[in-house]
């Protein structure tokens, strides 16, 4: 228990510090503590349910709609976060989740629009295509690392831009652009068939879809794999010390490649959830840097699958609620500032470790 607390403390402390700093920033720049308090309350209600309105005689939608939006965002953040976290576990830094997400999203959009199948099969095929696309796109850096010694940080950064340029500046605007009918020129690829859409969980109240279930299942499965299976243990051994792992008979190269494949597949799934759940086509541009958010989720979640899930649920919520801050003159991207600052503080892990050692040191011990 003490160990868990010690491991979680830097993340929790960072998130709280970041929230306080950003609260003060709003107070200073937007005139007063009351404004900041109102803005943060609006964000909270927008994130986790508008309880004041609900208890004031509002409908259940006042609570369910914000929660649905939050969970929709959290699903994508969880999957990209897991993608980065799983690579971390073998000691690789997958900065390429964004590129893998783009490839996965495109694969899902193409299969979703180009194939006709019964519902369950169609969704499964789209998810499979996205996972395979993401995994293949991550295989390159893994092979380059294994056989040519190219650092994965550099290769994945390059591949992010290659994917972005090829998909959003060529394929989506060129060969794969939806055929235009009449005056309606649709940006992006053709609309996916209804059979490929992820089922909605709350009907018309919210856009919440089965993506969140997929994300939770992925987090739990990864957690079990890392803690209960030999393969997962080997990954962790490689991440902790590749030389020691090699000496004790672990095939380090294979661990690198298999973890990178899983990492890419998870990022690809994030892309699929985005397309099959909310966008229904590959839009002109994905716009948001979900893959880079994954880095934040992985680190704030301390590389632990359930930590990533918790972190994604929190920040998915804040980001869904962030749109309500616009009423107080704060841009809707403000939660991303909270998230970035929390990540920066988590990076100063050593500092927090010193604090936690002081706090959690057994009384009377050395």
């Amino acid at each position: 228990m003490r160990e868990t607390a010690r491991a979680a403390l830097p993340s929790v402390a960072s998130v709280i510090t970041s929230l306080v700093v950003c609260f003060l920033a709003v107070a200073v720049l937007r005139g007063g503590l009351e404004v900041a308090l109102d803005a943060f309350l609006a964000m909270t209600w927008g994130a986790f349910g508008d309880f004041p309105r609900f208890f004031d005689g509002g409908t259940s939608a006042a609570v369910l709609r914000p929660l649905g939006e939050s969970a929709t965002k959290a699903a994508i953040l969880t999957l990209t976060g897991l993608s980065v976290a799983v690579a971390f576990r073998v000691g690789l830094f997958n900065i390429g989740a964004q590129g893998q997400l783009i490839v996965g999203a495109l694969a899902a959009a193409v299969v979703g629009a180009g194939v006709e199948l019964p519902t369950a099969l169609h969704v499964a095929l789209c998810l499979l295509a996205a996972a395979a696309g993401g995994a293949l796109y991550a295989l390159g850096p893994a092979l380059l690392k294994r056989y040519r010694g190219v650092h994965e940080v550099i290769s994945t950064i390059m591949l992010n831009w290659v994917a972005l340029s090829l998909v959003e500046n060529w394929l989506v605007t060129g060969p794969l652009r939806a055929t235009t009918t009449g005056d309606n020129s649709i940006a992006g690829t053709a609309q996916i068939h209804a059979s490929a859409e992820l089922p909605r969980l709350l009907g018309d109240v919210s856009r919440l879809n089965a993506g969140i279930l997929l994300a939770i299942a992925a987090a739990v499965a990864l957690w079990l794999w890392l803690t209960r299976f030999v393969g997962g243990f080997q990954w962790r051994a490689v991440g902790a010390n590749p030389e020691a792992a090699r000496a004790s008979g672990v095939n380090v190269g294979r661990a690198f490649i298999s973890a990178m494949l899983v990492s890419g597949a998870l990022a690809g799934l994030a892309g699929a959830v985005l397309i099959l759940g909310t966008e229904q086509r590959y839009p002109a541009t994905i716009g948001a840097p979900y893959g880079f958010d994954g880095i934040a989720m992985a680190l704030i979640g301390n590389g632990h699958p359930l930590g990533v899930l918790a972190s994604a649920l929190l920040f998915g919520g804040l980001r869904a609620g962030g749109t309500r801050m616009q009423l107080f003159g704060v841009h809707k991207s403000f939660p991303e500032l909270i998230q970035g600052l929390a990540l920066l503080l988590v990076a100063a892990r050593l500092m927090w470790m010193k604090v936690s050692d002081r706090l959690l040191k057994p009384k009377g011990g050395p």
Partner: protein
Amino acid sequence: MLLALLSSVLDAAPAVVFAAVGATLSERAGVVNVGVEGMMRAGAFGAAAAALVMPTPLGVLVGVAAGALVAALHAWLCIQGRSDQVVSGMAINLVMLAFGQFLLEAAFSSPAGTPAITQLPKWFGHSPLTWLAIVLPFVVHLAVTRTPWGLRLRAVGEKPQAVAAMGVRVTRLRFGAVVLSGAFAGLGGAQLSTAVLDHFESHMPSGLGFMAVAAMVFGRWTPLGAAGAALFFAFGDALRISLASSAPGLLEVVPQGVLLALPYALTLLVLSLQRRGAARAPAALGQPYDPELR
């Protein structure tokens, strides 16, 4: 046609040249700098915001200082805090992306960009920063290869313990290199908002920082190589833009997206074709300095 092309390269390239040359300094000292994008953003915002209340050249200096300040944070996290250098750099990118947007909204009540400022004056048809971008890589090259400081800088990125044994303070040298790298990135960002455009735009520098990192790797961690690669990338980009207007037929054959992907694909190709053990990244790159190790 060719002259117009070269002229547009002279306007577009300096931002990436400054940032790429700066990045080599940090990495040669052994500190990974993937935060160039964030540092450029700080420079671009700082310069444009400052130029609203002071002469633009002074605003550029503010941009340089802003880049250096962000780099100092990176240096503190990596050197004093011994954080993971890639994590710190990416965190800086994410923070600056959101912080820039927040400041735009808070200070100028406009999500799109700052109000227009007076652009830098033009010397011989181009901004002074263009001419500086031509000279600076050579200056940095000489400083890195011919001065005692440069020798120590390179040594500290290869075998810091050996340099420490000579009585050089590793942490101070690295800190200086990272801050200088940020100042260069800030200058590059300032060039975008004061010379290329006349205001800060909410998306600036929209990936040019990563292009600078690519140029640094492509140029094999040398100032002249990085500057050359940055020029080459900028030339390719200028060619693409000019082809789009002059020969749209060609772009049917080779789509724009393919051309946009080319600098990154080329960098990756060069990296993967290179022999193991050939000229590559500094040996101690990414490793926090631990005085206890020998």
